[in-house]
């Protein structure tokens, strides 16, 4: 859990933004209140953020800034609906490097229309691609994962999920759970990877932000 968090000081050093900007974005609801996590440290109380989410969100804000006012941006970033309407062609996916060619070739077609992808479909491709390109998963496992996502995600209520990829004695399996989930495994199980839907869409939003600015 500790690795997933970043302190405010580290964040500012890493991204080069200032305190004023951070608070301003928070006021404009560009950064959700829940991401400000208070913890006590030896220097007093410090604020921490979920690392991957805040970094990609700040990246999104900085990149969108030129075309939009802060208020417009807040609407767009918090409005999931506008992203759900986004559809992307296969050509764009490859050009923008959203999903690798191999993943797209292999799984793209099963999503129906070959050339146009919806946001939801893209999330699944993106998830598969992330594990594949990290070299954590074989092609067969990728197929299993993709099938699982396609069939099972729609059954989860809130649409927010977490995925656990585990291996025990060489046998791999995927566990899909309603977020936020905490799972405990027996000693023989190795947690290869954990993905959350919120992380995925945040990163995907960054890659698709250009669609909304146009």
């Amino acid at each position, binding site marked *: 859990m500790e690795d997933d968090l970043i302190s405010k*000081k580290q964040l*500012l*050093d890493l991204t080069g933004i*200032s*305190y*004023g*900007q*951070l*608070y*301003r974005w*928070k*006021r404009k609801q560009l950064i959700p209140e829940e991401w400000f996590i208070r913890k006590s440290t030896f*220097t*007093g*109380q410090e604020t921490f953020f979920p690392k991957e989410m805040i970094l990609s969100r700040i990246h999104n804000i900085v990149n969108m800034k030129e075309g939009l006012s802060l208020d417009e941006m807040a609407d767009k970033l918090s409005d999931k609906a506008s992203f759900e309407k986004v559809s992307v062609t296969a050509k764009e996916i490859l050009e923008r490097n959203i999903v690798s060619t191999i993943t797209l070739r292999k799984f793209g077609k099963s999503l129906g229309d070959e050339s146009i992808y919806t946001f939801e479909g893209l999330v699944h491709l993106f998830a598969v691609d992330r594990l594949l390109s990290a070299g954590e998963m074989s092609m067969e496992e990728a197929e299993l994962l993709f099938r699982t996502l396609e069939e099972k995600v729609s059954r989860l209520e809130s649409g927010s999920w977490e995925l656990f990829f585990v291996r025990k004695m060489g046998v791999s399996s995927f566990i899909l759970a309603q977020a936020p989930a905490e799972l405990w495994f027996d000693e023989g199980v190795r947690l290869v990877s954990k993905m959350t839907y919120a992380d995925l869409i945040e990163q995907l939003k960054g890659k698709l932000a250009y669609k909304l600015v146009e």
Partner: protein
Amino acid sequence: MDKHQLPDLIINGVSGGAGGTYNNVNMDGVGKVVGPIVARMFKGNGHMNLNDDLAAEEAECNGVIKVMGNMRFGTLKVGGVLNVGKSFRGESCTLNGMVSVKGDCELEDFVGEGSFSVGGLLSAGHVDFKLQSQGKANEIGVESLVIRQVNNGFWSKMFSGIIPKLRPELCARTIEGDFIDVEYTTADIIRGNIVIIGPGCTLGRVEYREQITVHPEAKVGKVEKVGE
């Protein structure tokens, strides 16, 4: 807002009213409103109790006004005492008197004279404040913060010795911002890009990125340059 004409709520003398969506709300005297109010223009004079939320594009509060719920506004002018039970959010607030907020306070511009107390986070674009008695916030996060003490006369000096709450100073746990210029401030930590510490400050720790000035009469525990 809707095209059709919205009703007005007018209270004169000792009376009460119900919440709802109004065009103008004018309250003079002593009044009480049950239920949330949404108004284009809100004016309160005298002693008012609103036991729910208040949202107004333009608001003016004179006298003693109490809002038990959240308060949202475009511009607000306060002359007198305003109490807010939950959060306080708006574009600009001009204060001449006292504001006390139990929850968070989010403003773009906060200027004025008098005192304030914020239970949670005071987050603002620009704060330019002259303290006549205590200013208090749990945390402060701003783009620019300028705090000055009003030259106080003999009587207030004498009272402030007896009642600490009347001592004109700013108290906060942490203050973070791009530009911070304070005097008579007590805080655990100040973090900023450009920090100017004036007389009468008692600070545990100051972290700065670019520039710092410390008045010889200020008590500062530790100064540290961070970043780079």
